[in-house]
């Protein structure tokens, strides 16, 4: 029984000894290095691109939009984003031209000597003003997507009306490995891309459409973190490296420097969320009216889906008899925002949890009593009309409270001032998170997994990448358990689109639950197939006979969608997700009364994971996500200049939590199985991002009375809120 145990991760020793090869570690002979010429303007017409005089251009190739053989489009959901700007730039840092040279320094110098002449155009930065503005960025009215959800019946009971506005800022994924991609020409005139990525098939499609031919394969290198930041963005590097490799007729690698990565790549969508609610005197929630604005930046990327997830999670884990929700994601002349762990749900639930605290404050109720009164129970109905089966809200609340009963060990060492006056506080927040794609998303994807016998061992072929979360370990565990064999005999192959089927992207907390579930079905199919060929027996006997018989034994399994799931994407009614994860977070912190700085002592999380396939890997996901959420809560702030360019583009001034900032973590895994997942597992990748920030805000309020409704809660903001009490 390997499921439920924590064998050491497959790729562990290679990573621990420095043997793993990440994209920037690859250096094929003759490789050149690529660099990107980027817009310094938010919105401008490009009048000309030329090589500056006085620079030695002999060993440099230069590529512009004119050199693109196929479509000048970064293929994703819509075709609005060019690979290289064609006549107009719509955001600062937009790629205009590319250079490659024998060394990185040479390439960077060359990029600086490419002269771009602009005619400046007026630019739009305020997302609240963008909708319908005369300056046109996208479509008819600068709206990427509008979503409306109407559900239930309005009340005629006497009720209190409580209203609040909640905002969140940009956040950088900050994978520690910067974006990196290598393009190599193949003997057949095709291209092989190897790089840091989450979704090989996104890149495969993007490069093929840009080239206008199909001789492309895409392979993942060991990838140093993604968190959504390597979901769609690497398609841009791949297209760029491809163009340079063709122009230079040799391998070309592009690795962003950290400052470039910070300025140019996607961030978490900022949001402004207004909530108006009707609540009875006893604290029963009656009506939720919500208005959400998100800033998508200059191109669509995945904004539609981010807004969708925000709207579907806005109600929080609470029962609302009536809801009217309206969301808009708009275009502005800023670098596009994109996928980031949680995908809109953290922004929405930050607002809802802060609003619950506002209701409690207003009505003089205990915030926890208010939550208990309204938390989902079995059979409750969500605002999409979905009836919830076995919601885990109470289970995670109780598990977290039990664990948090242990005394807190306050930290003694801390960065900054010693001997300051500190006040401690505790805060609690709850969240839910839909697992997998929304509604009928999986039906469209039809993710595939193949298994092949290799001798008597089994190879798992999928495009689901390991970006740290443990796919290389989890898939073999699932297959081994299903076949009844030792895990050592099952391994994942390289995630190369030339070799593996499309399992769908590595996103949306779907890899273990959906693709892992497909691995389980594939293993059952393999057993059936072997029995048809070689009679009865266990896997070992069958594999031995198959090996003796020779020939390829391969099965392919396609994810079958639960036909009970009904979803209407026009009305946003129906079963939004096949299942939900649940989480409760209890934060103990101290606030420095002189500076407003927050010091985390301990964070307890309890998360319903369905089934912890590997408890160590599951807890690792949750702890990492929790700290990323604490960074979002109090430390991480993107400061933009007048052109919308990130000013604090270094790790010295975009601050993420260090080991010293991080609290002690107690991680409780609650298991309420989902029958559609492998061994009951649910998705867990994103839910840890949802609740911590609101728990921090409540704890700050408990500690010093400061009420904060905007993220991040930097020391300056906490201090100002203390003063404003």
């Amino acid at each position, binding site marked *: 029984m390997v499921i439920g145990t924590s064998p050491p991760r497959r790729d562990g*020793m290679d990573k*621990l000894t420095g043997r793993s090869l990440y994209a920037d570690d690859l250096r094929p002979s003759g490789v050149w290095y690529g660099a990107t010429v980027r817009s310094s303007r938010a919105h401008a017409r490009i009048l000309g691109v030329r090589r500056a005089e006085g620079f030695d251009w002999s060993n440099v190739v230069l590529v512009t939009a004119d050199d693109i053989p196929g479509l000048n489009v970064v293929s994703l959901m819509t075709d609005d984003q060019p690979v290289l700007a064609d006549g107009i730039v719509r955001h600062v840092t937009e790629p205009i031209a590319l250079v490659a040279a024998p060394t990185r320094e040479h390439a960077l110098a060359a990029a600086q000597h490419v002269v771009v002449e602009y005619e400046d155009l007026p630019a739009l930065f305020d997302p609240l003003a963008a909708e319908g503005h005369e300056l046109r960025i996208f479509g008819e009215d600068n709206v990427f997507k509008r979503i409306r959800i109407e559900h239930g019946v309005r009340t005629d009971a006497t009720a209190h009306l409580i209203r609040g506005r909640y905002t969140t800022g940009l956040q950088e994924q900050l994978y520690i490995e910067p974006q990196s991609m290598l393009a190599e020409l193949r003997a057949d005139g095709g291209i092989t891309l190897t790089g840091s990525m989450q979704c090989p098939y996104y890149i495969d499609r993007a490069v093929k459409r840009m080239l206008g031919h199909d001789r492309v394969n895409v392979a993942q290198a060991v990838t140093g*973190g993604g968190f959504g930041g390597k979901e769609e963005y690497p398609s841009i590097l791949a297209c760029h490296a491809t163009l340079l490799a063709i122009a230079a007729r040799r391998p070309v690698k592009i690795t962003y420097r950290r400052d470039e990565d910070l300025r140019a790549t996607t961030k978490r969508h900022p949001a402004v969320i207004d909530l108006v609610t009707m609540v009875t005197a006893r604290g029963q929630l009656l009506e939720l009216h919500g208005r959400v604005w998100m800033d998508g930046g200059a191109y669509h990327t995945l904004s539609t889906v981010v807004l969708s997830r925000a709207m579907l999670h806005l109600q929080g884990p609470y029962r609302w008899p009536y809801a009217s929700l309206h969301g808009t994601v708009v275009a502005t002349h800023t670098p596009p925002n994109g996928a980031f762990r949680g995908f809109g749900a953290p922004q929405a639930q930050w607002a809802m949890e802060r609003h619950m605290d506002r209701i409690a404050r207003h009505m003089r109720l205990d915030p926890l009593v208010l939550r208990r009164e309204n938390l989902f129970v079995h059979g409750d109905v969500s605002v999409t009309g979905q009836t919830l089966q076995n919601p885990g809200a109470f289970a995670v609340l109780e598990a977290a409270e039990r664990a948090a009963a242990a005394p807190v060990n306050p930290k003694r060492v801390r960065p900054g001032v010693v001997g300051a006056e500190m006040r401690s506080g505790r805060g609690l927040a709850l969240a839910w998170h839909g697992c997998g794609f929304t509604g009928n998303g999986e039906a469209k994807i039809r993710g595939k997994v193949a298994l092949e016998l290799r001798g008597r061992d089994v190879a798992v072929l999928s495009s689901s990448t390991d970006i740290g979360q*443990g796919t290389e370990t989890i898939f073999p565990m699932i297959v081994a358990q299903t076949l009844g064999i030792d895990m050592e005999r099952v391994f994942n192959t390289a995630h190369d689109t030339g070799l593996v089927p499309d399992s769908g992207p590595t996103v949306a907390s779907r890899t273990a639950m959906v693709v892992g579930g497909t691995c389980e079905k594939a293993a059952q199919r393999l057993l059936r197939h072997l029995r048809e060929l070689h009679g009865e027996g266990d896997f070992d006997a069958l594999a031995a006979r198959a090996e003796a018989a020779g020939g390829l034994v391969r099965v392919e399994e396609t994810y079958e969608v639960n036909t009970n799931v009904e979803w209407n994407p026009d009305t946003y009614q129906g079963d939004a997700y096949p299942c939900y994860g649940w989480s409760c977070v209890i934060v103990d912190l101290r606030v420095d009364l002189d500076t407003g700085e927050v010091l985390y002592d301990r964070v307890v999380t309890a998360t319903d994971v369905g089934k912890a396939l590997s408890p160590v890997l599951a807890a690792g996901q949750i702890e990492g996500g929790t700290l990323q959420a604490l960074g979002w809560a109090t430390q991480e702030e993107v400061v933009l200049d007048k052109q919308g360019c990130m000013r604090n583009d270094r790790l010295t001034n975009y601050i993420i939590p260090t080991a010293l900032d991080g609290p*002690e973590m107690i991680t409780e895994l609650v298991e309420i199985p989902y029958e559609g997942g492998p061994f009951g597992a649910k998705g867990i990748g994103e839910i840890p991002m949802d609740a911590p920030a609101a728990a921090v805000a409540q704890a700050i309020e408990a500690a010093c009375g400061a009420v904060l409704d905007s993220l991040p809660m930097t020391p300056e903001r906490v201090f100002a809120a203390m003063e404003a009490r």
Partner: protein
Amino acid sequence: MIVRFNCNGSDVQVDTPPMARLLDVLREDLRLVGSKEGCGEGECGACTVRIDGAPVMSCLVPVAQVDGCRVQTIEGLGSPATHAVQTAMLMFGGAQCGICTPGICMSAAALLEENPHPTAEAVRVALAGNLCRCTGYQKVVDAVCGALAGGAS
């Protein structure tokens, strides 16, 4: 200039501009790519190596400075036998994406030499210069605290 130093137990000699970063010399000239570049300015710790035993960010060190020194990289830490901190990191789940991991192992190994049984707080202080975005640090701290417990050394 010619720079000579001892790298992972072998004497090496490289012909390089004196201001070349030690990180580049290791990665490009000596093809020891286990040391990673996460920021290039001394903030992330992914490039941490040990110079005469002390953990140092190799992206900040001009190679001329290590002339005559003993340099150890992640490739040298685990050889010939796996270091206790590597084993513990594997068992406790201290490595996820792994990009910060070589640097963390180098800092932790230096700490354990001075203080074989550190408290959790001592570990957090010693690793404050090594950023990790995946783990939330708890499992890293547990691994380093546990590395030499139970006679694993």
